């Protein structure tokens, strides 16, 4: 964790310095006010600022805590978060991206999630390096931007399984158009660390490949990733070889919305698991009712299935109001599922949230 911070802060300093060097010309020899305004406009146009925020209220009917951290106590901090993304054009081919996110669950301590250089090598090839987002899922890069999703929060049975979201490393993206299709290939390499249920993870030799096909409103994404996982302080769990495969499908039509991802995690020493969900939604003007079936199945016996019913209402082009009930039937739970103890009865998690992007 400490190493991450050093890497990200040195990247940030480097970025600031390069920016100062680039903009110092502005004061010299510009007499004409029009030229000066133009110079300011060019400078301002090099920055793109985008932000997002979510405020949510949630609780369930049982004492057992779900993995999302929800039980019968009403909570404001589970889903609430705010982030800001700054894209700075360095020149015609390079830009630097920084994204700062503060989450209620982390006491709003803002973290520099991403800080990377994006270099357009040729028309089809982009290279990136720095602190990047692990490209495990179709929605990995926008997982905190709740406005861009139909649900109040990403489906936990699938998206809650990976305790690390970022990595330090490099990736290469190749994209091409084939008739009305867009094809994308991504190869990445790096190291990552994270914390989950009080355990500190250190991952090395991480690499993977992702293939994406987009045609009209349909997107299909296939990824395969390898990594050596180490849990700090457990000598048995050092450099455990693991692989992670993901298939994602999205259809974002005028009326119907179909979204789903399936994952399989295999490794040498601990348990393996498979998980998937399917969401079907229907847009009727500003209203989008949706239903999701999700399944998590771990080979040490923990199984959880959930049905989520939700409704999204687009208040304006920047604000969405959402409400959702997630139901976990106690008969479908094996062991304690993804709860911290066996729930006393079937669980209903109720959530209301407001999402915005700007």
């Amino acid at each position: 964790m400490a190493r991450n911070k050093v890497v990200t802060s040195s990247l940030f300093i480097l970025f600031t310095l390069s920016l100062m060097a680039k903009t110092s010309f502005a004061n010299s020899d510009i007499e004409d006010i029009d030229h000066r305004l133009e110079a300011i406009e060019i400078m301002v146009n090099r920055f793109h600022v985008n932000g997002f925020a979510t405020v949510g209220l949630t609780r369930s009917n049982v004492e057992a805590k779900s993995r999302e951290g929800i039980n019968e106590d009403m909570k404001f901090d589970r889903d609430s978060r705010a982030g800001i993304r700054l894209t700075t054009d360095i020149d015609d081919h390079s830009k630097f991206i920084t994204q700062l996110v503060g989450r209620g669950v982390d006491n709003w301590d803002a973290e520099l999630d991403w800080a990377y250089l994006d270099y357009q090598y040729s028309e089809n090839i982009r290279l990136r390096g720095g602190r990047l987002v692990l490209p495990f899922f179709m929605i990995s890069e926008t997982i905190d931007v709740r406005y861009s999703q139909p649900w109040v929060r990403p489906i936990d049975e699938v998206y809650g399984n990976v305790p690390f979201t970022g990595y330090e490393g490099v990736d290469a993206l190749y994209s091409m158009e084939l008739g009305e299709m867009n094809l994308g290939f991504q190869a990445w390499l790096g190291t990552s660390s994270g914390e989950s249920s009080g355990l500190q993870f250190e991952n090395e030799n991480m690499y993977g490949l992702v293939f994406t096909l987009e045609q009209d409103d349909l997107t299909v994404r296939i990824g395969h990733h390898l990594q050596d996982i180490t849990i700090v302080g457990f000598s048995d769990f050092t450099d455990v070889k693991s692989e992670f495969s993901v298939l994602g499908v999205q259809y974002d039509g005028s009326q119907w919305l179909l979204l789903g991802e399936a994952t399989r995690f295999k490794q040498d020493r601990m348990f393996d698991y498979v998980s998937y969900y399917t969401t079907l939604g229907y847009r009727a003007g500003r209203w989008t009712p949706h239903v999701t079936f999700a399944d998590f199945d771990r080979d040490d016996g923990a199984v959880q299935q959930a049905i989520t019913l939700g409704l999204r209402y687009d208040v304006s082009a920047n604000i969405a109001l959402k409400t959702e009930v997630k139901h976990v039937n106690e008969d479908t739970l094996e062991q304690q599922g993804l709860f911290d103890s066996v729930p006393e009865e079937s669980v209903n998690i109720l959530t209301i949230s407001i999402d915005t992007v700007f």
Partner: protein
Amino acid sequence: MKTIYKLILCLIFVGSYSVASLADIVVVVHPGNPVSALELSNIKRLFLGKTTKFSNGDTAVPFENSAQKSIFHHQITGKEVAQLKAYWARRVFSGKGFPPKEMLDSGKLKSLIANDLTSIGYIDSTAVDPTVKVIMILP
């Protein structure tokens, strides 16, 4: 609930009908642009950032027109404004690019297109003059 829903549907319906009947929307480019007609799918892909080229391979830079944005997208990309916003949020925050620049003033948009060979936009058909070339009349 049902009445509210019907009322909203009615408003949307009446709203789009009355605006559409006033005038057609036309897609325009620079008069010197060799492209004389574009397929609907090419225009859709341009305005969704899925391509950056006209069908002949030349660079294309699309511009949105605030006044007609919702009708244009309803007809061309099939996306309502909020859905479009969510679509772009996914692309912007995953580094896939930014939405086309949106012009508040149709007159400025027209003069911008009249002076830039790569630009493409849409305006009210009554505003068309020889400074721009019409390549599509919205269905």
